C-alpha cells in the first residue's frame, strides 16, 4: 500500500548515507509543571468513567461506620475521634488503597510503557496521579465531616481546617499508595498492601485512642493518617491549640514529601526493566 519509495523520501536512505554521520537533534523534554498539569487533568477526568469506586464507595463506608458508632460512643471526646477518623478514612481509602491498586495494575499490565516512552519527568506522573487521587477524596471527606458533625452534634465552625488536612493527609497517603503500587512485585501484593494500610487507618483512626493498649497506640503513632485525624479532632474544642494542629499537619507534609520521592524513584525503576 506504500507508494513512496524509500529512496525519494526527503533525507531518505541515499541522502543520509551521503551526509556526515552525527547524532540527530533530540525533541525537547516535557517540562515538569506542564506535564504534571496534563497528567493531573487526565487522571481527574477518569472520575467521569469510574465515578462509583473513586467518589462514592468511600463516603458510604465512612457514613456507615459513623452510624454504627453512634450507639457505642458516649463522650464528646470519643465522638470527635470518630468523626475525624471517619473523614480521614475516606482519604485513606481513595488515596492509599485505590492508588496502590491503580499503579499496581498499570505496572503489571504494561500500562507504564505508555508513560515510559514519553519524555516526561517521573515526578510529573507520580505527583499528577497522586494529586488527582487526593482530589477525588474532597467531596467524600466533606460529606462525611458535615454528616458526622450533625449526627454527633459537633460544631461546624472549624471545618475549614479540612482545606489543610485533605491535601496534606492526601499527599502522605497518596505517596504511600503510589510507592506500594510501584514497588510491589505483583499487582495482588499492591492491592493487599493498599487494603492493609486502609484497614490500619480505619481501625487505628476511628476508634478513640484512650481505650487502646500501649502497643496498639504505638502502632497508631506510626501511621501517617493518625496525624491528619488528630489535627482535625483538635479543632472541635472551644479553644484549639493551633500549634499542635500545625505540628500534626507538619508530620503529614513530611511523610508526604518522603513517600512521594520514594514513589518517583520506584516509578523510574519500574519503567525500565
Amino acid at each position, binding site marked *: 500500500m506504500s507508494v513512496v519509495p*524509500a529512496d525519494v523520501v*526527503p533525507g531518505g536512505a541515499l541522502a543520509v548515507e551521503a551526509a556526515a554521520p552525527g547524532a540527530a537533534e533530540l525533541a525537547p*523534554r516535557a517540562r515538569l509543571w506542564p506535564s504534571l498539569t496534563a497528567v493531573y487533568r487526565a487522571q481527574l*477526568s477518569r472520575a467521569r468513567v469510574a465515578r462509583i469506586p473513586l467518589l462514592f464507595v468511600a463516603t458510604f463506608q465512612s457514613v456507615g461506620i459513623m452510624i454504627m458508632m453512634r450507639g457505642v460512643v458516649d463522650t464528646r471526646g470519643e465522638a470527635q475521634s470518630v468523626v475525624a477518623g471517619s473523614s480521614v478514612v475516606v482519604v485513606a481509602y481513595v488515596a492509599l488503597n485505590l492508588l496502590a491498586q491503580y499503579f499496581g*495494575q498499570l505496572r503489571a499490565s504494561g500500562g507504564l510503557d505508555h508513560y515510559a516512552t514519553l519524555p516526561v519527568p517521573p515526578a510529573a506522573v507520580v505527583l499528577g496521579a497522586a494529586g488527582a487521587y487526593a482530589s477525588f477524596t474532597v467531596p467524600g471527606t466533606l460529606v462525611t465531616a458535615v454528616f458526622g458533625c450533625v449526627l454527633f452534634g459537633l460544631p461546624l465552625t472549624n471545618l475549614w481546617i479540612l482545606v489543610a488536612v485533605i491535601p496534606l493527609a492526601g499527599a502522605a497517603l497518596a505517596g504511600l499508595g503510589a510507592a506500594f503500587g510501584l514497588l510491589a512485585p505483583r499487582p495482588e501484593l499492591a492491592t493487599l498492601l493498599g487494603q492493609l494500610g486502609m484497614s490500619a487507618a480505619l481501625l487505628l483512626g476511628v476508634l478513640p485512642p484512650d481505650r487502646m493498649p500501649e502497643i496498639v497506640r504505638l502502632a497508631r503513632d506510626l501511621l501517617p493518617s493518625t496525624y491528619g485525624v488528630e489535627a482535625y479532632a483538635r479543632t472541635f474544642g472551644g479553644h484549639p491549640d493551633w500549634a499542635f494542629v500545625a505540628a500534626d499537619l507538619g508530620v503529614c507534609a513530611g511523610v508526604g514529601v518522603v513517600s512521594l520521592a520514594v514513589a518517583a524513584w520506584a516509578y523510574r525503576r519500574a519503567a525500565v526493566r
Partner: protein
Amino acid sequence: MCAVRGLTKTYPAVRARRGAPAAPEVRATDEVELAVRRGEIFGLLGPNGAGKSTLVRQLTGLLRPDAGSVEILGHDIVRHPERAARILAYLGQESTALDELTVSLAAETTGRLRGLEVRQARAERDAVLDELGLTPIAGRPLKKLSGGQRRLACFAAALVGRRSLLVLDEPTTGMDPVARRAVWAAVDRRRAEDGTTVLLVTHNVIEAETVLDRVAVLDRGRVIACDTPAGLKERVADEVRVELVWRERAPLEVPEVAALRERALEAGRRWTLRLAPEEARAVVATVTGGAAFAALDDFTLATPSLEDVYLALGGAARQGLVKA
C-alpha cells in the same frame, strides 16, 4: 537510522511455585542484527513468542538488553534509554494507561507529555483525529469503544507530537478495513512529508507483503532472514502452495491422497501443501477427479506467501502466522 548489533536478552528460569509451573530460561532475542534505513517501513514478522515484542522493547529503551547495542539516529539507546522517548513514538499492545480517558483527551495528554504546548497539542490532536476519522467519537472514553476503534485511538495518540521514528507493535489488530486504510494512509503521509521511518511488528502475512519495504523474519529470538518481501518470496519461487479443504474427512482410501498426507500440514479439514509446480498440477488433477473429488469441499492454488518463506526457512511454529 537504527542499527542493532548482537542484541541478546535472556529471561531467567522461573522456579515452580504454587499455581505457577516452572519455566526454563528463555533466550528471547539471540544475537539480533538489524539496520533500518531512514524513511522505510521496516517490518518484524514472526509468530507469537518469536521475540518481536522483546526486541521492540529493547529498541524503545523499555528493556535493558544483556548484551549488544542499539543506535538510533546516532544515539546509544542502551546507555541512554531515556533518549528513546525524544526520538521515537511507540504504540505498544496495551492501552491501560489511556483506557478511562476520552479519545480527545488521550491524544491531547500524550501530545503534552511529548513536550507540546497546550495550543499546539490541541491543534495537532484535532488534525490527527480528523485525519483518522475519529472526530465523531472524540468525546467517548476508550474503554467504551470496540477493540479496533480503541486501537485506532491509541494510534492517534502515538501520532500527536511528531517523531522521526514510529515503532508500532501490531497496530491494526482488531481493525476493520476502513481503519486499516486510515492507518496506512497516515503512515504514508508522514513518510512523504517528513521522511518518517516506521518499525512495524506484525504476525499478519498479508499486511507484511503489502505494506513493508523490508522485513526481518524472526523465529525463536533469531533473525532468520531479512530482505524485501519480493526478495524473500523469490527464495521459494519454485514452489506452489496447494490448499485442500475436505467435506468431512480426507478420503484416505484413495492411495494418491493417502500418499500426500505425510507432506501436508493438517489443520482440521484443511490440508496445506508446498509443492513443485508439476507436482501441484498432478495433485489438482487427482483431487478434482474420481473418489477424491466427492470428498473435496474446496481447493486453492497460490503462489508462495511470506508464510511459505517462514516455513521454508525452518520456522518452528507450524501455524503461527495470520493471513487476513
